[in-house]
């Protein structure tokens, strides 16, 4: 469905609703046009709502006047979910950033969508509580954006992802109605689970204006180790062996040899000679149990061929290991003009096969590939390092990505673990979602958003 920019009359109505929190100045439009994909869509206006009622008024007006609405948080997403369809009115929700309640008796938090994830984490941790989802963007991404994209992070293996922590939502549907979904209880089977439907819907079903999140007690102990392997296969075997041994580390981060090379070069790290993969293992739990668990994990790593292991029990030593891991993304940014970045998932037992296939795909297309993974949950971040200004390379990357998705499907995997579909992956949706299921999804969209005003152009391939 195509949308025109809001008419003069519509802009005037918006201004009367939002006052100074409305702008159609070109400067404000330019800075609401992009997200971390660097794709752009020039909006027709920007508003900064401060209440559910204002969001509802905006969406009702969109239905009356026939313009589209794009909700926006920190715009740090990696698939274009926050890139407005041209002419849309952007609802920048970052000023709705109150933590309304932390309920210590029931272990929940009630938040507005603009709350920064790390701010929430810090606030609840002060009370001995824990909000586990930790996307790499948690210092600047918003809870609203995390829910809309179902953000994951490093702790998915043990603690799950954003969807596992959303109990209740207040949201504005595409028709402009305010709905409340879910329940402020841990158990609830009262009808369909509309909450989960909205989580990960990328702003296409409803705009989230309030969320009640589940919290858990903060684990008291933490210990971390880094193990180096001569082959990525061995690292993969170690991961499978740990899980088979009923160890459930909170993080099992894999980094391949090519990525280690880039980090070593960019940041001056020196890894053991012959190391072609590393695993970061972090365990948490009762203080007395944690060192034992880490030692067991390390034994398993060694039994599977680890050539060197460093264990860290103090915060300072743990920080050193994570500081190295945090250099992965920045190093890749500076290693080439562009990186084509996908976040496929395969069953963890298939990780070695997938890694082999990735190496093979890159070789055949003459590309450099760097892989790192949340190995515990099979989520592999595939990075082709290219200069997209070079047409031949850009086409090669395109073809390679297509093969990556097909291979992931063949291995029983999924297109996206935590980045969503947005604009960049919508043409691949049919690889995973069959026509019947796709039709169900489209019908659901129509129920929430009959006129299709919410974030058009995302998720579904062009018909």
């Amino acid at each position, binding site marked *: 469905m195509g949308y025109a920019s809001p008419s003069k009359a519509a802009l005037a109505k918006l201004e009367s609703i939002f006052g100074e929190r409305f702008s159609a*100045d*070109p*400067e*404000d439009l*330019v*800075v*609401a*046009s*992009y*997200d*971390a*994909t*660097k794709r752009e869509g020039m909006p027709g206006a920007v508003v*900064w709502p401060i209440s559910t009622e204002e969001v509802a008024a905006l969406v009702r007006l969109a239905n009356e006047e026939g313009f589209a609405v794009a909700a926006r948080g*920190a*715009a*740090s997403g990696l698939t274009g979910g926050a890139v407005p369809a041209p002419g849309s009115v952007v609802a*920048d929700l*970052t*000023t709705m*950033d109150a933590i309304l309640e932390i309920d210590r008796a029931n272990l929940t938090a009630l938040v507005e969508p603009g709350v*920064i994830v*790390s701010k929430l984490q810090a606030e609840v941790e002060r009370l001995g509580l824990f909000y586990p989802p930790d996307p790499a*963007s948690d*210092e*600047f*991404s918003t809870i609203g954006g995390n829910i809309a994209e179902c953000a994951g992070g490093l702790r998915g293996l043990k603690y799950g992802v954003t969807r596992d922590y959303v109990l209740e939502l207040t949201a504005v549907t595409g028709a402009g109605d305010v709905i409340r979904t879910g329940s402020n209880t841990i158990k609830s089977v009262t009808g369909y689970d509309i909450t989960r439907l909205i989580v990960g819907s990328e702003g296409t079903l409803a705009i989230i204006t309030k969320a009640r999140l589940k919290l858990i007690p903060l684990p008291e102990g933490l210990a971390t180790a880094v193990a180096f392997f001569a082959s990525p296969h061995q690292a993969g075997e170690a991961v499978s062996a740990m899980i088979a041994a009923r160890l459930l580390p909170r993080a099992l981060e894999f980094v391949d040899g090519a990525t280690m090379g880039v980090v070593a070069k960019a940041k001056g790290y020196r890894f053991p000679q012959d190391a072609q993969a590393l695993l970061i293992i972090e365990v948490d739990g009762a203080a007395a149990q944690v060192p034992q668990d880490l030692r067991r994990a390390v034994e398993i790593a060694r039994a599977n061929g680890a050539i060197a292991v460093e264990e860290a029990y103090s915060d300072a030593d743990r920080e050193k290991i994570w500081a190295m891991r945090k250099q992965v*993304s*920045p190093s890749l*940014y*500076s290693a080439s*003009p562009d990186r084509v970045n996908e976040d496929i998932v395969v069953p963890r037992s298939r990780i070695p096969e997938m890694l082999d296939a990735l190496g093979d795909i890159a070789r055949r297309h003459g590309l450099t590939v760097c892989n790192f993974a949340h190995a515990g949950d099979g989520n592999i971040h595939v990075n082709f390092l290219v200069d997209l200004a070079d047409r031949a390379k850009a086409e090669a990357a395109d073809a390679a990505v297509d093969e990556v998705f097909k291979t992931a499907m063949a291995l029983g995997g999924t297109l996206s673990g935590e980045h969503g579909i947005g604009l960049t992956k919508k043409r691949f949706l049919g690889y995973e979602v069959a026509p019947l299921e796709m039709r169900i999804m489209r019908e659901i969209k129509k129920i929430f958003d009959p006129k299709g005003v919410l974030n058009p152009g995302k998720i579904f391939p062009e018909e």
Partner: protein
Amino acid sequence: MSVSVEREIAKCSKCGKCRSVCPVFLETKREGMVARGRVSLAEALFRGRLSDTAKLRLYLYGCLKCLRCEDACPSAVKFGAIISEARRKLGGRVSLPWFARLGMRAMLSRRRLFDAVVKAAALAEKVLPRRKEGKVRHLPMLLGDGRGLPEIARKSALKSLDDYTGPAGAERKVALFLGCLVNYAYPEIAGAMIRVLNAAGAGVYVPKGQVCCGAPAASLGDEALVRRLAEKNAAAFSALGVEAIVVGCASGGAMLKNEYPAVMGKENPLGAPVLDFSEYMASHIDKLSGRFPGRVVWHDPCHLKFVQKISRQPRSLLAEISDFEDYEGADYCCGMGGVFSAFFPDLSLKIAARKTDALKKAAPDAVVTGCSGCILQLRDRFSAEGSNVRVMHIAEVLAAAVGSDDQPRRDAS
């Protein structure tokens, strides 16, 4: 747009991380007020997609240039270079009244004229009511309302200090770059730096030909003026044959270190390495004896920590001679930002409030820092709140620790 700036703009991956560190963004929550947005705006300006409007100027000038964003950026984008080039493009059209702009051009590059104007301002102080002992309001056209500014010294540091202080045959000799605030408002800091440097065995030149570092001009995008000031300072310093040029002002040091080689097109334009006072003293830490009484904390000036990458040195100096503690928010901006506070007084005060809250929580006997702009801002804020927290330059703390004041100080009056 220059090739290098085009490359820097292309490097921005639009990840949004700068939103987590920018003091201006934290207060305004507007994408136009954070590096990612400003980079996009600069690009649109260079490509002719945006024209020079009041809003564009608000977004491109509403930046402290603290460069926290550069420090945090995963893609290592040189944001400072982008914003400087954008301001040069807007240069001459900034919203300073034309007479202030002309006045600045004439004044900053001519010491005698600057002296005369400052003297006139000092006279004006006498007829204006004092808000608080030792603080007055003046230059309202530059600094907005409600700010308490330091009293202008009866005699500027350059007028009261000798050309050279120290033993004639000192094995090490350094030259001191003062900066305007120290020269006119805080000459006692200059005296303290000389005492400490002498105690560390260094003879100290204070070349009288030195002029403003050019930071205000750079902020406003007046490159020609920056170059003129750089050349004057090069003439004053380059023939001294010293081992280092020591700077007691974070912003001045950042200008001398980073901007001068660029605008003058040569390495080492002042003829000797430029070192921040704490940077120089950290390698002579063994010369310190004595203690400074009381609990002290350090305030990281942005232009020291994020531009010059100096944060460890002052801490080790303070730990050596005092009861030093770190605290949460030590590197949070004071909100001064040179001319930023003139254009955006309200925003400046909001940013300052976060800083003073952090400092009040730390509750030290003295807040120590290394930037005269930060000192001005923090003293003003504490005084406005009726607090008696002392704000000191690190040279003053070290001077107390090296003990005897056998060296010249501020013209006692």
